[in-house]
């Protein structure tokens, strides 16, 4: 959900330089209303942003595949994404209420971080968040896996 920009006028005489947005408890998003309770639960955060994106994607996918119901969606989450499973599921289920995907199960599979070392051409799984090649101590690495945030598959009925 993009937020509206407010231009800051630099006229030295003006006092109210810009407007403030409406209170954050109001209807933030036209499609997905974030309720006061959720905001108060501190859930308008990381997992909430992701859940909103997931819900929107699922609704689009459902339409694309002409599904009348969606039983489950499997999400692949890279280790670097810092996603807390229970928070994401709670945010997801809260957003799904009274939508066409109410009751859809969100299945989360974590993927460990894997890197390729350009120095010695080896591949390794990152242990204890150490991004140094265990074989040659090289630091010129590239991701093979670990930053995913992908709806891998969905299961539903036409």
């Amino acid at each position, binding site marked *: *959900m*993009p*937020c*509206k*920009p*407010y*231009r*800051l006028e*630099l006229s030295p005489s003006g006092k109210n*330089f*810009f407007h*403030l*947005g*409406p*209170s*954050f*408890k*109001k209807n*933030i998003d036209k499609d997905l209303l*974030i309720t006061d309770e959720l*905001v108060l639960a501190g859930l*308008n*955060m*990381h997992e909430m*942003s*992701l859940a909103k*994106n*997931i819900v929107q*994607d699922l609704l689009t*996918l459902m339409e694309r*595949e002409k599904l009348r119901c969606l039983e489950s969606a499997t*999400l692949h989450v890279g280790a*670097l*994404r*810092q996603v807390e499973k229970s928070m994401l599921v709670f945010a997801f289920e809260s957003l799904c209420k009274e939508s066409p995907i109410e009751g859809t199960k969100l299945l989360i599979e974590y993927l460990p971080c894997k890197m390729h070392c350009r120095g010695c051409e080896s591949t390794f799984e990152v242990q*204890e*968040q*150490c*991004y*140094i090649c265990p074989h040659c101590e090289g*630091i010129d690495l590239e991701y093979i896996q670990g930053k995913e*945030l*992908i*709806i*891998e*598959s*969905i*299961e*539903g*009925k*036409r």
Partner: protein
Amino acid sequence: MEFKVMKKVLEANDHLAADVRALLQEHGICMFNMISSAGAGKTSLLEKSLPLLKEKYRIGIIEGDLETDRDAMRLKSLELPMVLLNTQGACHLDSQSILNALKELPLNDLDLVFVENVGNLVCPAEFDIGENAKIALFSTPEGEDKPMKYPLLFRQASLLVLNKVDLCPVLDFQKDAFLDDVYKLNPQIDLIECSVKQGLGIDLWIDWLEKKQKDACALGGVR
């Protein structure tokens, strides 16, 4: 019936980030995304360094805040074009917001844009906003154990500014342990130690920004 979809969840944001990059390139602008916890010193660092930088570069600011215009008011005396984004509870800035904000700035008359992201170590690291570099600002009172708790930011950032180093002795901040963890997470990150309050390291910070701006020019990213 199962359908393989392989749909990237933040794809829409990534596409918009590409639009932001194209817009910046078209106008020859280098944009920095400053990320830290609340209270680490993002606004203070800008207050201290922008008066020096604005002698040489034409600067714009995008100020992200959950609520209030307080940071924007602090930076107002710099008399630089500025756009305030009140995210109203959302914990980060996204590409669409940045795109909207950039359109409010006089892009033809800018060399550098500083985005002061919402104070948060988690979400802003997650969302690409089309910046040339992510800058992590970290302050010693936050504790030396934090990099491993918030790995994504330290992985994504090109530069780590360690602020409030003057407080190390008082806080018993274990700088070596901190730097070991940062190095493990991102061996290629640049590091500047500074104390905004005491004016330490501001010269290094400015040098780094200038170098980054030149690199961006050389890569053809910026005219």
